[in-house]
């Protein structure tokens, strides 16, 4: 008989899932998205924002349908092990870990850099380390406190965007601070500029799919995951549109396309000290929320892979008191610190985005397989993704278009990324696979569901 697997505590509700998804993403509203303006112009930026909104809405729906029937840690990794096999699962798990650990490192780097702007006497290094260690400590102590904290800081950061919007008096035509007619530049590079803008348009939503990684810790996965993920997506669509609107009206497109902190620069343009201070705090809080959620997600992916024996089982231990995957959480701290100290922020972020896009490709393929293996009515679903296969096809096509846009600017990074995952696959197939306990890998799903169609 197989040994019983370690399990995490079931304490999360929809609010925590919302906090996990929106928390990881919101930093993309405060920085990064604005490079869409440099690539595609102001109009290209909002088109990219909404087209990418379609990609992520499809992704969230597809993810939530599959996630709601798999109450296991690891999200897309857990889906891959059931619908695609061990090698694909290993790759998806590894991609998730790199996506989140690298994003976590980048977030901490930005916190240090922002704080340094307060005074030349302030060092960024102790604050980068404090961010990573502090959030790791929080994650180590329990997922409920971690995501409750994330909810509070994410909500505050999100509200600062609304404060900025209303401070411009956009609703009073004569006194509005917004100068959309003067500051915007339309579509300077035509339609190809929009494709180029896609890779930065994903910043508005990148990471919302991470909600599925905490499926095992939900009190009711079938309810918490759909409610948390879908309300999170709506929150982000509203936040992204307001961010574009307020930044485009306060900062000239030439400056906006090159800005490091676009929302903060927009706050500076209002000339109101209270708004500037709030957006400064909002930028830091959004980075912290993102890093916090990334630690939660990366550790769950690593833990789930270890529990299924795809990597050494040592990392599958659960803390006896806090019920957290404490070894997986601690293991990733030095890795995040190491990425942080490379100082190559753009390279770190590009690898994170590439990993995320590859996971989306796998997700689309898995959804087709899932619906074929378990047609509607064969198992109980907590959520049903509407308009399948069109939403899944849209996800596939838009992900490929984004990869194409990325290829124009970062083909060497993409090549390096593909090489890395190919080598990792070789290592897994030639060395690690013989240690994989195939019964343990799919035992939970096999005991829950009927035999799939065609097997």
């Amino acid at each position, binding site marked *: 008989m197989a040994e019983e697997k370690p399990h995490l505590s079931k304490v999360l509700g929809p609010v925590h899932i919302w906090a996990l998804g929106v928390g990881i993403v919101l930093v993309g509203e405060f920085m990064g998205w604005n490079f869409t303006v440099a690539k595609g112009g102001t109009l290209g930026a909002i088109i990219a924002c909404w087209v990418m909104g379609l990609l992520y809405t499809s992704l969230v729906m597809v993810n939530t349908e599959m996630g709601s029937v798999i109450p296991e840690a690891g999200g897309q990794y857990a889906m891959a092990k059931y619908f695609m096999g061990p090698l694909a699962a290993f790759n998806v798990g590894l991609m998730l870990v790199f996506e989140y650990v690298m994003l976590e490192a980048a977030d901490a780097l930005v916190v240090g850099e922002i704080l340094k702007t*307060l*005074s030349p*006497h*302030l*060092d960024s290094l*102790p*604050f980068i*380390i*404090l961010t990573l*260690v*502090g959030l*790791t*400590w929080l994650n*180590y102590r329990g997922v409920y406190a971690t995501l409750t904290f994330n909810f509070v800081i994410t909500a505050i950061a999100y509200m600062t965007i609304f404060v900025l919007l209303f401070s411009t008096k956009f609703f009073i035509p004569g006194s509005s601070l917004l100068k959309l007619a003067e500051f915007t530049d339309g579509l300077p590079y035509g339609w190809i500029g929009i494709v180029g803008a896609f890779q930065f348009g994903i910043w508005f939503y990148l990471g919302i799919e991470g909600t599925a990684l905490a499926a095992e810790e939900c009190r009711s996965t079938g309810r918490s995951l759909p409610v948390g993920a879908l309300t999170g997506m709506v929150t982000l669509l509203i936040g992204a549109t307001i961010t574009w609107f307020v930044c485009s009206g306060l900062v000239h497109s030439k400056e906006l396309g090159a800005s490091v902190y676009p929302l903060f620069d927009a706050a500076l343009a209002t000339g109101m000290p209270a708004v500037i201070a709030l957006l400064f705090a909002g930028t830091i809080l959004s980075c912290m929320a993102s890093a916090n959620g990334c630690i939660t997600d990366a550790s769950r992916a690593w833990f789930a892979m270890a529990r299924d024996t795809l990597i050494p089982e040592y990392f599958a*231990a659960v*803390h*006896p008191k806090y019920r957290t995957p*404490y070894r997986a959480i*601690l293991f990733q701290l030095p890795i995040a610190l190491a990425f942080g100290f490379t100082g190559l922020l753009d390279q770190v972020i590009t690898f994170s985005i590439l990993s995320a896009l590859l996971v989306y490709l796998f997700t689309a393929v898995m959804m087709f397989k899932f619906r074929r293996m378990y047609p509607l009515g064969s198992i109980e679903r907590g959520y049903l993704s509407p308009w399948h296969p069109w939403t899944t096809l849209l996800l596939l096509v838009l992900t490929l278009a984004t990869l194409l846009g990325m290829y124009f600017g970062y083909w060497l990074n993409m090549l390096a990324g593909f090489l890395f995952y190919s080598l990792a696959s070789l290592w897994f197939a030639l060395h690690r696979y013989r240690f994989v306990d195939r019964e343990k890998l799919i035992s939970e799903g096999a005991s829950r569901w009927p035999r799939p169609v065609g097997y």
Partner: protein
Amino acid sequence: MSLWEALNWTAWGLSALMLGLMALDFVRVERERASKKGE
């Protein structure tokens, strides 16, 4: 020492404190695990 330098040291101190607390707890849990396995 200026306020900024004090903040730098506070950040270092807090990092060391939390790292220490985690390390102590980790060692305690691992010892308990090892002793349970031994039994």
